[in-house]
C-alpha cells in the first residue's frame, strides 16, 4: 500500500484547524480545571473530617470512571438540567471537571508541603486567612506547581482526543473526517499521531525551560531528577 504524502499536504489545513481547536480546548480546560481544583483544594483544607472526606470522594469518583463516560454524562446531563451548550464548550467543561480532582490534589499537596509556620507567622501579624493565602502561601507554592501542571497539560492534550466522540472538531475528529474522505488510514493517522507527538514534544521542551526559569534555588523541595525525567517521558498522572 503506497504512502501518499500529498494527501497529508492536501488535508493539512483541515488538520491544522483541528489542532487549533485542540489547543484552545486544552488551554481553556486548564484554566477552568485549575480554578475548580483550587476551590476543591481549599475546601479540603477546612477544619473537620467532613471536608477532607468529601473531597476524597470527589477525587475517587472522578478517577475511577473513564473520561469518556464523564464526557457523555456531562453531554447528556446538561440538557436534562435544561442547559444547551455547543459541543466544544461541553467538551472543555468535561475535561476541566475530570481533571479538577488532579489539580486539587496538586494544589493541596503544595500547600501542605509548606511549613505550617509560614501560615502562622502571617496570621500572627494580623493577616486574615485570605490575606495569608494571597501574600504568603500562594506565591510560595506557585513554584512547586509548575512541574505537575506541565504534566497535566500533556495528559489533557492526549485526553482531548476523546472529545471527537461528541463531534467536537478537534484534531482527532478532523483526522476521522479526513479518513472518511480519503479511505487512507495510514496517511491520516500517521499525520494525526505525528502532530500530537510533535505538540507533546514541544510542550515537554517548554516545560523543562519553564522549570529552569522559575528556578529552584531557594524553595527547592522538589526532586529535580524525578520530575525532569517525567517531563521528557510524557508521564501519566498518579492515581
Amino acid at each position, binding site marked *: 500500500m503506497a504512502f501518499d504524502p500529498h494527501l497529508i499536504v492536501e488535508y493539512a489545513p483541515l488538520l491544522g484547524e483541528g489542532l487549533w481547536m485542540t489547543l484552545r480546548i486544552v488551554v481553556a480546560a486548564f484554566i477552568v480545571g485549575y480554578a475548580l481544583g483550587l476551590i476543591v483544594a481549599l475546601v479540603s483544607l477546612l477544619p473537620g473530617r467532613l471536608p477532607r472526606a468529601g473531597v476524597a470522594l470527589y477525587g475517587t469518583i472522578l478517577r475511577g470512571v473513564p473520561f469518556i463516560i464523564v464526557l457523555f454524562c456531562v453531554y447528556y446531563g446538561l440538557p436534562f438540567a435544561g442547559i444547551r451548550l455547543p459541543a466544544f464548550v461541553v467538551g472543555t467543561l468535561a475535561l476541566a471537571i475530570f481533571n479538577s480532582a488532579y489539580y486539587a490534589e496538586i494544589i493541596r499537596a503544595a500547600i501542605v508541603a509548606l511549613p505550617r509556620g509560614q501560615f502562622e507567622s502571617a*496570621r500572627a*501579624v*494580623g493577616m486574615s486567612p485570605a490575606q495569608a493565602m494571597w501574600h504568603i502561601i500562594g506565591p510560595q507554592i506557585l513554584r512547586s506547581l509548575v512541574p505537575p501542571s506541565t504534566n497535566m497539560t500533556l495528559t489533557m492534550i492526549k485526553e482531548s482526543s476523546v472529545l471527537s466522540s461528541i463531534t467536537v472538531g478537534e484534531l482527532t475528529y478532523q483526522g476521522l473526517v479526513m479518513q472518511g474522505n480519503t479511505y487512507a488510514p495510514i496517511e491520516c493517522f500517521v499525520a494525526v499521531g505525528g502532530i500530537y507527538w510533535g505538540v507533546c514534544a514541544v510542550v515537554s521542551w517548554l516545560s523543562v525551560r519553564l522549570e529552569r526559569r522559575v528556578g529552584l534555588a531557594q524553595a527547592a523541595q522538589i526532586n529535580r531528577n524525578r520530575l525532569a525525567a517525567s517531563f521528557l517521558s510524557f508521564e501519566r498522572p498518579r492515581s
Partner: protein
Amino acid sequence: MTEAPILSVSGLTKSFRGRRAVDDVYLDVYKGEVIALIGPSGCGKSTLLRCMTWLEQPDDGFITIEGQPFGRERRGNVIVHQSRRTVDALRPKVGLVFQQLNLWPHLTVLENVVRAQTVVLRRSRHEAIARADGLFATLGLSAKADAFPYTLSGGQRQRVAIARALAMDPIVMLFDEPTSALDPELVGDVLSLLRQLASSGVTMIVVTHEVGFAISVADRIAVMDHGKIIEDGPKTQVLDNPSSERGARYLAHFARTTSYDIAREEPV
C-alpha cells in the same frame, strides 16, 4: 504597681489530647517589664505564648489587651467568641517572634517588614518603608534591606523577625526560645539585642529554657512546670527565695549548669 496591666491572662487552660499544656494560668504584664518565662521542656511555655496571640485557642480563660478582651469575652452570663476579624485586628498588638522565625522566603527583608504593615494596618507604603528603615537602623539591618532571607545569617534573620513584629507597633513582644536556633557563640549577641530592646522600653516576655540567659535579661521571672506557673515575682526574690520546692529545685539545678556567671552577667 498602680497602673493596669497592658496584657492580662486569667484562668487560661489549654489541653492537647487530654493533657493540660497550660493549666489555669494567671499572668499580668505591666508596661516596660521584661519577664523571663522559664521551665523544663514541655512545661507549656510556648503554648502559653501562642495562646496569648490566639494562635492556639485556649479551652478556658480570658485574655485582655490594654483592658480590651481578646479572643473571647464575657457578656453578662454568656461567653462569646470574638469574630475572626476582631481577633485579627487585635493580633498585631502582641508581637510574636517564633522560634523558627518563619520569615517569608519569597520576599526581601524590606518587604517582610513592610508587607504586614500595608496589608493589615493599611499604612501607606511610604510610611511603612520609613518605619522599616527606622527599625533597620536600630537593629543594624540597613545594608540588608533588599536581600532575601536565605542570604542572611541566623542572627540577622532573627533581627528581621524582630523588626517584622516591631513594625506593627505591638504593646508587648513575645520571644519563643530566641537562643535555641542559633550557634552558642551568638547567644551573647541575642542577649545584648534583647537588653537593647528592653532599655528602649519594649515590654517583653522571653520564653527560654536557658535559665542563665533569662536571668541576665529579665527583671521578673516566672517559672512554669506541667502547665502551671509555680513561681512569679521580681528576679532577685524568685532566685533567692523560691516559694515552692519544685521551683527551688529547678532553679538550683540550672544555676549549677548554666553557662552564665550570673553575678558578672556574661558567658563563663
